């Protein structure tokens, strides 16, 4: 099962009128059930297929102290069975119906989905509603799955130096907030996770009043409403749902540096992460400005970093930037650069700081800004072609403190970002807010 870590990409969505040129926007329906379940329906009648997703407002940042990895471990265990449908019956049914399924865990949410022919939507909703409250776990089920998660960690992180650097940098970027812990968990804590931990997290967070149902595809809102009432509507809400109060991250005062040296590394690289507001914590327009900034600075070929560091000064073979703004609390803005041969990371970092200073001082040309915004808005229109991409965007937004209206409004807000606002966004890129990471083959 996939573990999604948020990187780049804002809330790309919907089509506004503008230089992207597409008229109209995505039409969605939104309603709630009496037990607190929020529902979003995104009709797309081109193919007789639906994407059915349930999103929980619970992710790695909601874990109790000392239990890193439990949100993700639970995600795995959710496939094991319930009283009504034991031993993987759900997955067997999905497969028999020709469906695809998976799940992913992020810092702020955990989501489960199936993609099936539309006539099977009810069956999926019945199973998923049952699994919201009916999970059954035994040690015989939990123990081998813990090994699977440890293998997943070995595969994604422990065998991959660049992932190890990313993990170390994130842990350094957040001095207090749980975003600093890896979503998959720290190894010694994963090893100690057990059945009781999983059930405690499940009982605390998996409830209709802490979930969002997103259905996209060849279906009408009224039909989804009736089905949802029949299935999820029967699940009892949790009366004293805990508030998502995480440890507070202080404003940073000290620039930090993380060096990972490993003899396996033959291609060094430079990374930087800055603590920055997210869409949920930013003042109006600030997060949009950060998205435009990441694009104007970091676009693959036309971004300013590529222009200066790769094309002109030939100090790097590639350079890019990202903004992970889809988060409930302050999150990260990042830069990534691969040095040219014979260029040291120190040299590259010094040049990067010069280019950043130049941009902070002089801002961007109108052409650069227009290009960045055109791309962001166009990507939103391209996404309208994919029901599952749309479903994911709404789910991620609604579990990180945003509304569906904000998602639909997003392209218009991007177009409204001014050059002055982009310049202003450089206040989040002060060195003292940052962690710089070096990946090297030998100690440097």
């Amino acid at each position: 099962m996939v573990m999604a870590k948020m990187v780049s990409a804002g809330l790309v969505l919907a089509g506004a009128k503008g230089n992207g040129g597409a008229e109209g926007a995505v039409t969605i329906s939104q309603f709630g059930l009496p037990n607190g379940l929020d529902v979003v329906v995104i009709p797309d009648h081109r193919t007789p297929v639906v994407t059915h997703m349930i999103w929980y407002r619970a992710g790695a940042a909601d874990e109790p102290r000392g239990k890193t990895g439990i949100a993700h471990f639970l995600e795995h265990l959710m496939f094991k069975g319930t009283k009504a449908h034991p031993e993987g019956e759900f997955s067997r049914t999905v497969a028999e119906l020709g469906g695809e399924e998976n799940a992913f865990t992020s810092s702020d949410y955990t989501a489960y989905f199936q993609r099936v022919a539309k006539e099977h939507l009810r069956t999926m909703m019945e199973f998923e509603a049952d699994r919201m409250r009916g999970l059954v776990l035994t040690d015989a089920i939990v123990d081998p799955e813990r090994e699977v998660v440890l293998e997943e960690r070995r595969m994604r992180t422990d065998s991959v130096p660049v992932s190890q650097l990313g993990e170390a940098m994130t842990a350094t970027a957040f001095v207090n907030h749980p975003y600093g812990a890896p979503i998959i968990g720290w190894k010694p804590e994963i090893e100690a996770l057990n059945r009781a931990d999983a059930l405690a997290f499940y009982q605390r967070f998996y409830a209709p009043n802490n979930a969002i149902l997103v259905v996209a595809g060849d279906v009408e809102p009224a039909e989804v409403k009736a089905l949802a009432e029949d299935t999820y509507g029967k699940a009892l809400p949790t009366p004293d749902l805990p508030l998502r109060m995480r440890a507070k991250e202080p404003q940073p005062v000290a620039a930090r540096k993380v060096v990972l040296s490993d003899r396996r590394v033959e291609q060094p690289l430079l990374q930087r992460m800055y603590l920055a507001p997210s869409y949920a914590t930013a003042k109006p327009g600030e997060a949009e400005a950060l998205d435009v900034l990441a694009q104007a600075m970091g676009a693959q070929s036309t971004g300013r970093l590529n222009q200066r560091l790769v094309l002109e000064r030939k100090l790097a073979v590639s350079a890019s930037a990202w903004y992970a703004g889809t988060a409930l609390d302050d999150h990260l803005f990042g830069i990534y650069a691969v040095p040219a041969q014979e260029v040291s990371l120190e040299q590259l970092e010094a040049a990067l700081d010069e280019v950043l200073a130049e941009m902070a001082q002089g801002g961007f040309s109108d052409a650069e800004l227009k290009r960045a915004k055109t791309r962001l808005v166009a990507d939103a229109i391209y996404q309208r072609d994919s029901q599952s991409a749309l479903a994911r965007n709404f789910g991620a937004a609604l579990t990180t403190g945003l509304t569906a209206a904000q998602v639909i409004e997003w392209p218009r807000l991007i177009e409204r970002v001014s050059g002055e606002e982009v310049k202003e966004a450089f206040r989040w890129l002060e060195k003292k807010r940052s962690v710089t990471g070096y990946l090297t083959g030998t100690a440097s």
Partner: protein
Amino acid sequence: MTAKTIVATSAPARATSARKVVSPRGVEAWLVEDHANPLVAVQFAFTGGSSQDPQGKPGVAYLMSGMLDEGAGPYDSIAFHQRLEDLAIDLNFDAGRDYFTGTLKTLTQYRDEAFELLRLSLHEPRFEPEAMLRVKAQALSELRHEANEPNAIARNAFAAAGFPDHPYGLPQKGTLETVPQITRDDLEAYRAKAFARAELKIAVVGDIDERVLAEELDRVFADLPSRGELALVEHRVVRGGEKRNIDLPIPQSVIVFGLPGLARNDKDYVPAVVMNHILGGGSFTSRLWTEVREKRGLAYSVYSSLSPFKHGPILAGATSTKNERAYESISVITAEIKALSRDDVSADELEKAKKYLTGSYALRFDTSTKIARELLQAQLDDLGMDYFKHRNEEIAAVEARDIARVAKRLLDTKRMLIVIVGQPV
């Protein structure tokens, strides 16, 4: 016994609306019109791919895929990229073993400009020295990054062991030694021999009608030479019966395994698809998934798949297991392959596999890009435009004895090639 399965034999509606469009000058494409969103997706492929790299210079086709958008016609590299970005046009190229592919995605309002940029990239690429150096530096940086990346090492080692002295045995991205030697002339020579109308297939989906598409096909593709001069690639059966260990200090062993597969036009190919689904196909119910992951917790991922390469088809799979249990994983996988070659599959297991394969077919057609990919692949595989209508019937007709026949034909563990990267103990 006939198949008693009641399967969803309904065909994917959007694909069955495909039409063949022939331009005034004779360029053919398959088109699915869809005006729901203001975008057009194009996918095309030239036969060739990296197996047409010149002798001693692997990596030419791959480098080419990075050079075609580095300036063309009146635009230098920067201007070309700015033009693409100003209009939010996605233009990408890629080189596989057998095909050199291109994709174009544009908003309707910039369709004209998008096709023009595609035309320029195919007919008038500049291949300027500065851009060559830069793109080669990027390719070399990727190769250095992959030098100790276990999956890349395993992939390359598997190819080298399975296809010695054959283009399939060479690394597609080239090597640290060969990439610096690639010249502009190599790219031009590749272009001349592979970018030809006889080698070309095109699929288009989205907000464009037949008349406009016909004009664009002529503009972009009609002036290509009618025939290429592809080198003859020898047919090979992947060489197996061997286990190769490659030492790498990581906590987990990456295991790649493979056997000879089947050509796409083999009469047993469809039963082989069903067989592979049962063995290690893409749902959480395959035998490998159940035995390796669910029961024993040996790995996060384990799968097998059919790759019907034109000159040496394979059935290959992979997993990753901590070093202490790597050999246990290999034993379990080998035992499952043996069991499937020996024992008939049950009626129930067969029925479930067929239901999955037929039921999930529609999921491949829910975005324009995915539909274009299917339309292109059906042309490359020479399946005919009717294929989308009868594909599910072909799957539904597979019987247990077909599986038994194809399993005996393919699943001979003595012929397995296994590559292990890590420090298994």
